[in-house]
């Protein structure tokens, strides 16, 4: 009798250990099974409706949640895998530049009321507006084509923070639909400028590559410049303008250094200097 009890106890213990160790695996399998079953049922009963709703969503319908509601998990037609609805409508942000005159008036009013924080905000908005206008003027002054490369208007960029030290950046990309590309970046940025000036002022940068020259000083339309070459990225030409601005040209698949310089000379550097108030 005793041995019988011992046997039952041992068997129960072994069963319990086995059950515990496999419980998680079984649970996972069960969940997988439930999920598959749920998907199959959804497909069977609401497949048509789901497709219909998705199309409606793309055309601006407000019914974007399908059968499961906004938190309907996998049954929601426009839900991602995390169960949250994904955005498929909306017009984005309004990119109208700040109204300079209005912001100057706001700054004046706030300053007179001793609301200096508000005055500063309005003033920064006014500066942002002016910088964006300067940037757009410079973009307009750039040529339509350079060395046979066409401008890509969609890539035109004017970036400003409205704070002088962080600066204004204007970028245009020219390309030939093949592999040749020229990126022109005009920056009014004191920190970047000082980094470039280190090349001019520090003799320590000269000939540090064991005789292989990857950069050198040159001139573009009478302006001192630095030209660099990298096998991976091609040519890079940096032309400082006055006190705090510079133009950086990045040329991919330009055959020779003179080709790169010629492309750089297509831009009216003096006109840009004038627009940025540089001497």
């Amino acid at each position, binding site marked *: 009798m005793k041995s019988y009890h011992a046997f039952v106890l041992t068997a129960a213990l072994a069963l319990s250990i086995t059950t515990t160790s496999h419980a998680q695996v079984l649970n996972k399998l069960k969940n997988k099974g439930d999920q598959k079953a749920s998907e199959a049922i959804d497909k069977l009963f609401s497949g048509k409706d789901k497709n219909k709703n998705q199309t409606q969503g793309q055309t601006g319908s407000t019914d974007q949640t399908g059968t499961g509601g906004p938190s309907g998990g996998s049954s929601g037609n426009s839900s991602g895998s995390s169960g949250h609805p994904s955005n498929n409508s909306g017009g984005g942000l309004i990119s109208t530049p700040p109204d300079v*005159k209005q912001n*100057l008036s706001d700054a004046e009013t706030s*300053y007179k009321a001793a609301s200096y*924080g508000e005055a*500063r905000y309005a*003033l920064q908005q006014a500066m942002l507006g002016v910088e964006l206008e300067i940037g757009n003027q410079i973009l307009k002054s750039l040529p339509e084509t350079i060395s046979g490369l066409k401008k890509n208007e969609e890539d035109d960029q004017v970036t400003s923070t409205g704070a002088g030290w962080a600066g204004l950046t204007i970028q245009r990309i020219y390309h030939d639909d093949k592999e040749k590309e020229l990126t022109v970046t005009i920056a009014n940025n004191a920190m970047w400028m000082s980094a470039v000036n280190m090349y001019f002022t520090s003799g320590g940068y000269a000939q540090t590559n064991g005789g292989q020259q990857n950069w050198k000083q040159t001139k573009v339309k009478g302006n001192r410049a630095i030209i660099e070459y990298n096998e991976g990225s091609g040519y890079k030409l940096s032309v400082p303008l006055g006190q705090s601005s510079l133009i950086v040209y990045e040329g991919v698949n330009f055959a020779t250094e003179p080709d790169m310089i010629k492309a750089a000379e297509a831009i009216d550097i003096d006109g840009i200097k004038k*627009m940025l*108030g540089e001497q």
Partner: protein
Amino acid sequence: MLAMKKLFMITVLVVPMIVGAQDFDKNLASARTAYGAGKLEDARFAMEQMLRDLDIAIGKEIVKMLPVKLGTLDYIAKADNVTGGSGSITGLFVHREYGMQPKSGSIEIMNNSPMISSLSAMLSNPIMGGMMRDENQKQIKVQGYKSLLTKSVNAETGKTNYELQVPMNNTLLTMRMDDTTEGEITTLANSIPLAKIAQIAQ
């Protein structure tokens, strides 16, 4: 005598404000004229000057909020410094000094300090804080603001000095004091209206 003193105070406090206001108005007029004439770069330059004028006006307001005594130390009026830094990396800068060597102290308020991001990361992230741990540094809270207290010992005098850095959004307040204790500098820091300073400095 009292009337003379009042007149002197009015002259000292009000005249610089009027001069500041005149600069702001003058630069505002220049900005409007230049913008109207399409001289965008000139307009931008005038606006940069206006930002500087504003920072100075804000700095003067902050100076009024700073204590005139730091414990037993009196402030040194002629050492008060308020600058606006439009066009440079930092913006507003306010500095006040107290006492004389060997026991002196100071309070500084700076916007966009290069220290802010590393300090905030250290204070808010336990991993960063652990990596940058220094036995002479301690994190404390001053009026709810997480702050860094650093102790140093003067090799010549053997006295203990403390520095307290309180980052508040993009404004950093730094308080230094020689020959003091943790308790004293914390108590004194608690007497500064930090929330008001942070609000006006933004």
